[in-house]
């Protein structure tokens, strides 16, 4: 799912770059004392107003969706609610799209973005990222009975990928003997594995863990075929107090096991990759 986004994000980034320039000028011209800056921090505003406004993507289950009563639900939504609880305020979930994440922050429509937001140096020019709270890789999904555990085992095997994703190239590079089948959607690729038309498929690890949770005849392998992606909470730039609070809270959230419990709730397994990168 993530592969279609960078382009849209770049478009959004371009459209707000003019805004960025003006706000930068404003920041330079005003000389504030540390005390008054703390007063102006989003942290103060949120606690004073009693509401935390969080942008989540509600069309990307299991990260975000709506339940039968049309209430927001999902992994990201639960993370946002946990954050609000720690602040002692109410969470207000604002539905957004991948492309609108950065504009939402830059125009102060929301206090934070919790929406499968992969950290990249490019995006960090526009927004500030917290420490990561979830990690994604591109992994293999196979039938439970299958002996396939890594790219090496794919020689002569049929591997389902989606058209336009970088996974096909990654598989060919890792094992030129794999036979690639290209489908239009991730759902069709999942179906191909379920029906035995493909021996394995490659997709986002969290998406596949969710699929494997829905269908116990499937399992997900551990090794990622591409570098891991770290998703973080996005906030506006120039507010160190707010970012500092989020990072401090995230550490508690992760070390207390709340994060792992939420992951287990939504993806059916324990988190696959550690939140701290090892090089």
């Amino acid at each position, binding site marked *: 799912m993530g592969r279609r986004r960078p382009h849209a994000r770049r478009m959004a980034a371009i459209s707000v770059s003019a805004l960025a320039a003006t706000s930068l000028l404003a920041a330079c011209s005003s000389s504030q004392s540390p005390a008054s800056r703390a007063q102006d921090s989003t942290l103060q505003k949120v606690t004073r107003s009693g509401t935390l406004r969080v942008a989540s993507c509600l069309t990307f289950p299991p990260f975000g969706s709506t339940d039968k009563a049309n209430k927001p639900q999902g992994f990201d939504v639960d993370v946002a609610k946990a954050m609000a609880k720690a602040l002692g305020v109410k969470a207000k979930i604002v539905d957004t799209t991948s492309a609108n994440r950065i504009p939402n922050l830059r125009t102060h429509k929301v206090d934070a973005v919790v929406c499968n937001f992969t950290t990249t140096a490019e995006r960090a020019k526009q927004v500030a990222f917290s420490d990561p709270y979830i990690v994604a890789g591109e992994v293999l999904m196979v039938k439970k009975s299958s002996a396939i555990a890594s790219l090496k085992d794919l020689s002569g095997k049929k591997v*389902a990928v989606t*058209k*336009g994703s970088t996974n*096909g190239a990654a598989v060919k590079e890792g094992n030129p003997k794999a036979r690639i*089948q*290209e*489908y*239009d959607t991730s759902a*069709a690729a999942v*179906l*191909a594995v379920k*029906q*035995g*038309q493909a021996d394995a498929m490659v997709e986002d690890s969290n998406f596949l863990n969710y699929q494997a949770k829905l269908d116990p005849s499937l399992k997900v392998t551990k090794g990622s075929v591409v570098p891991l992606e770290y998703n973080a909470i996005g906030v506006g730039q120039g507010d160190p107090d707010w970012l500092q609070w989020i990072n401090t809270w995230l550490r508690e959230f992760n070390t207390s096991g709340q994060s792992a419990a939420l992951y287990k709730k939504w993806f059916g397994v324990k988190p696959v990759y550690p939140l701290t990168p090892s090089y």
Partner: protein
Amino acid sequence: MFADWTYALQDWPTYLGAAWLTLKLSLAAFVLACALGLLGALARRSRHALVRAPAAVYVEVIRNTPVLLQMFVAYFALPSAGLRLSPVQAGIAALGVNVGAYLTEIFRAGIQAVPGGQREASRVLALSPFRTFLHVVLPQALRNVYPAVINQLVQIILGSSLLSAISVPELTGTAMVINSRNLLTIQVFGIAAVLYLVLTNVVVLVAELIGRAAFKPPLRPMRPRQSVLAGLRSAARRLVLIRKEA
């Protein structure tokens, strides 16, 4: 601009391979469709209701469901019933079965259009029913419906583009994959469109030549023959006339 086209054309072996696969599987599906169509037409004209009914069900079910759905059934659902087809096999089966239903009706119309006097004359000449069909009815029926049948062949070639949904690396699917890599949308799909035009026109031309050679009296061309240049000239003349009127 020009560089984009030459860059997009660097993948020409892939395009040609995909076009070749499209042609091969379309012809295979066409052969299957003709066989099914002929059998279906005979069954629909049978005296026995037990033979007529399955043929009627076949035609109605297939003609009234989308071919994409039939492809999904052939590829994704049949393994549950114990029949596992490769993407290409499933594609040929789905396209063949789909167009077979249309050809059933086309062949039936062709057979019905053969005048009753022909059959009566055959009986007078003491030809067996089988020989009557083979030597008298069928050649005339085929002559009646030949252009419509070739239309169905073109439909198969164009319909094969849907097979990319079940991962058949045919022309459209291949173009989509190349496009997602080089993002030269206009160039990539332009090349694919040209290849489809070449493919269908060559197939239709060959079919016309066969039609002229196979039938007695020879089948006239499906449209008045006109050289490309003359066609352009008359189109230009028409355009000028329209301009003048306006």
